[in-house]
């Protein structure tokens, strides 16, 4: 029997509102989160764990930045691009952020079309999302190259505290890895959507579990999380 078929167990109507409802769900048998599939629950809990990883990275960065005795390089100058003879601060990172946030929009649309079982549009929107993601990583590679050319290294840089380069490469690198993994998953799932795997509930190659359109949403959860993390990295690294 299908996992996601059971989205309506007939219990929804009698459910209590607010905290009472939550308490009743947790006190009930079988499921603590009613109508939440295993895959979705697992992704949420994974994201909670991943939140702790990014929090630790960002807190470590803040500690390093606050405790260093050497001046911290000025982000407005370091991350400026020379366009038409003028230094424009934060222009690249603004475009990168815009691209990544836009990809969240296309992802949300893909989820919507997925639940309408619109194969082609779902797949196209997922591929557009993946393209935005790849663009983001590409621009990040450009930014890395530029900074490396200017002499920034993980162990030092021409402008101040050595921890600037260490934190920058480590945190954006870790986030970029997340984006890259997301792009790979988006392409893999888009292929499944386009092939009609989720219409015929074809079994996965590795897991031999049946596939559902909900997988598009679960991939979306991951993608939105990665975008959200970027907002924090952007705020703490570039705007501070």
């Amino acid at each position, binding site marked *: *029997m*299908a*996992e996601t*078929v*059971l989205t309506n*167990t*007939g*219990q929804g109507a009698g459910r209590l509102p607010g905290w009472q409802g939550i308490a009743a769900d*947790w*006190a*009930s*048998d*079988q*499921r*603590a*989160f*009613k109508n*939440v599939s*295993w*895959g979705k*629950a*697992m992704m949420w*809990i*994974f994201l*909670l*764990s*991943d939140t*702790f*990883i990014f*929090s*630790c*990275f960002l807190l*470590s960065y803040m*500690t*390093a930045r606050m*405790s*260093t*005795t*050497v001046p911290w390089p000025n982000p407005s100058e370091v991350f400026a691009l020379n366009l038409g003879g003028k230094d424009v601060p934060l222009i690249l990172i603004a475009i990168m952020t815009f691209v990544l946030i836009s990809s969240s929009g296309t992802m949300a649309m893909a989820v919507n079309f997925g639940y309408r079982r619109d194969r082609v549009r779902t797949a196209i929107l997922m591929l557009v999302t993946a393209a935005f993601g790849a663009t983001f990583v590409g621009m990040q590679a450009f930014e890395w190259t530029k900074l490396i050319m200017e002499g920034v290294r*993980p*162990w030092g840089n021409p402008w101040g*505290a*050595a*921890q600037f*380069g*260490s934190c920058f490469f*480590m945190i954006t690198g*870790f986030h970029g890895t997340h984006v890259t993994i997301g792009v790979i998953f988006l392409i893999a799932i888009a292929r499944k959507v386009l092939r009609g795997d989720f219409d015929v509930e074809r079994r996965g190659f*590795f*897991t*031999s*579990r*049946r596939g559902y359109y909900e997988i598009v949403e679960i991939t979306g959860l991951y993608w939105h999380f990665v975008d959200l993390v970027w907002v924090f990295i952007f705020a703490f690294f570039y705007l501070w």
Partner: protein
Amino acid sequence: MVDVPYDGITGIPPAEVPEVELYHPKSWWTQYVFSQDAKVIAIQYSLTASAIGLVALVLSWLMRLQLGFPGTFSFIDANQYLQFITMHGMIMVIYLLTALFLGGFGNYLIPLMVGARDMVFPYVNMLSYWVYLLAVLVLASTFFVPGGPTGAGWTLYPPQAILSGTPGQEWGIVLMLSSLILFIIGFTMGGLNYVVTVLQARTRGMTLMRLPLTVWGIFTATVMALLAFPALFVGSVMLLLDRLLGTSFFMPSLVEMGQLSKYGGGSPLLFQHLFWFFGHPEVYIVALPAFGIVSDLISTHARKNIFGYRMMVWAIVAIGALSFVVWAHHMYVSGMYPYFGFFFATTTLIIAIPTAIKVYNWVLTLWRGNIHLTIPMLFALGFIVTFVNGGLTGLFLGNVVVDVPLSDTMFVVAHFHMVMGVAPIMVVLGAIYHWYPKVTGRMLNNVLGQFHFWVTFLGAYLIFFPMHYLGLLGVPRRYFELGEAAFIPPSAHSLNQFITVVALTVGFAQMVFLFNLAWSLFEGEPSGGNPWRATTLEWQTPETPPGHGNWGKELPVVYRWAYDYSVPGAAEDFIPQNQPPTTGAIQGAAP
């Protein structure tokens, strides 16, 4: 707890959890090696953890030989001694206890106890084991690389962990950190499975408040591990970058081997904060499954319901939550801001409240129970006294003013070995004696078991009690040899010899236990499905050992909590969780 009906006629609620589509193995390889069955994965986890645990046991013998008879054994030099200490600690805490409780007992017991056919994502569960195995192999490989394993102490504090004075600076520390990162990745895959299985895949009638405490303990510990391991992950990545790329996250500028090092501007304290934000919850990641399992052992073998079930559950949850705000009590002497000590001492002592509730409830469960002194019960009793003992010295060390002079002495060694070494191991051993019949269908030999228990229990006390005294004398920990020091009397040296002899004896008793495990597999008395006459679901499986999918055609339906022992008026002194209420007993409203 009364029997709670649902609709008055069938007494059972409609199924919300769908039948799992099990992966059916097609060959010997997918059945026993690359298996997706949680029970096989559990055994793989347990055997791997025990194998690497034996290495750590041998390391402890070597350390004791050196401490008891310094200068006698030419094959142990000072660097090796530090390497033994480091590897012993790291293996025992992470690769043995964490993996055994969560990967081993968790995998075996969670699906059976909640009435599921398997974990929710068996393929991911399988990957979890193989990544864990890889982590163990990377760890073990450090014994064979140039320079040997790292000797930085299990806490791996920078700056010394990656400086050239420390053994294993070339390869050991790099592989150790890589192995930790792998372990965390592997654990996360398994841990997500355990949590989702408990939350979303229980059988009909199994509410959270009917779960056996074993599941509560493992579940809470897994949630904690998913939130605490990230800090170790981040710390390991950053230390690895410091070592390999020359970043200075944790490295201040300092003189190394007479030369100014390339490092500068980093904060060693930051690593300690990250490490102990993981490290203290880790203590309870090991302890909470032990708390849960021991509750079930005591209730079953005293034929009495657990005292204060709800308080036991809330105490587990409270300990889990509190353990995230106490980490800096490991850092009183680190040079952190002194007023932090005040805050962390307070939170540390507050943990004593839920912990004491648990201890009282165990004792009150025993009170006027029909106590069967079976081997699992003996180990459970051994756990209680050992844990109380280790917990009380924890109250000493939780206070800043007492901790500062006792820090880095043998008193600390005695404390944490009692509370998170011996005590959880007692539960592991008791649990093995308890569930071995379910896993194999045969009982472990009782005479060998008695020998094993008494030597282990008395031996543990003879080893660690004198260490408290040594610590009060001021004998430091982690020292290769004590040498001539005015404050260390000759009696301390003879006490060290005594401890070494006992430690070797206790080690020998574990070999007897291993022999028992192997021998009983073939020659043990057949146990039947429910030798302890226990109520929980894993004892009610149609087959013993449980078959693929655990439950035959129909999933069990749960009608009662896990502790209906010696119910007045019942035909037997236990009522299994899946036994329907007798006619006329259905009364009351929905749960």
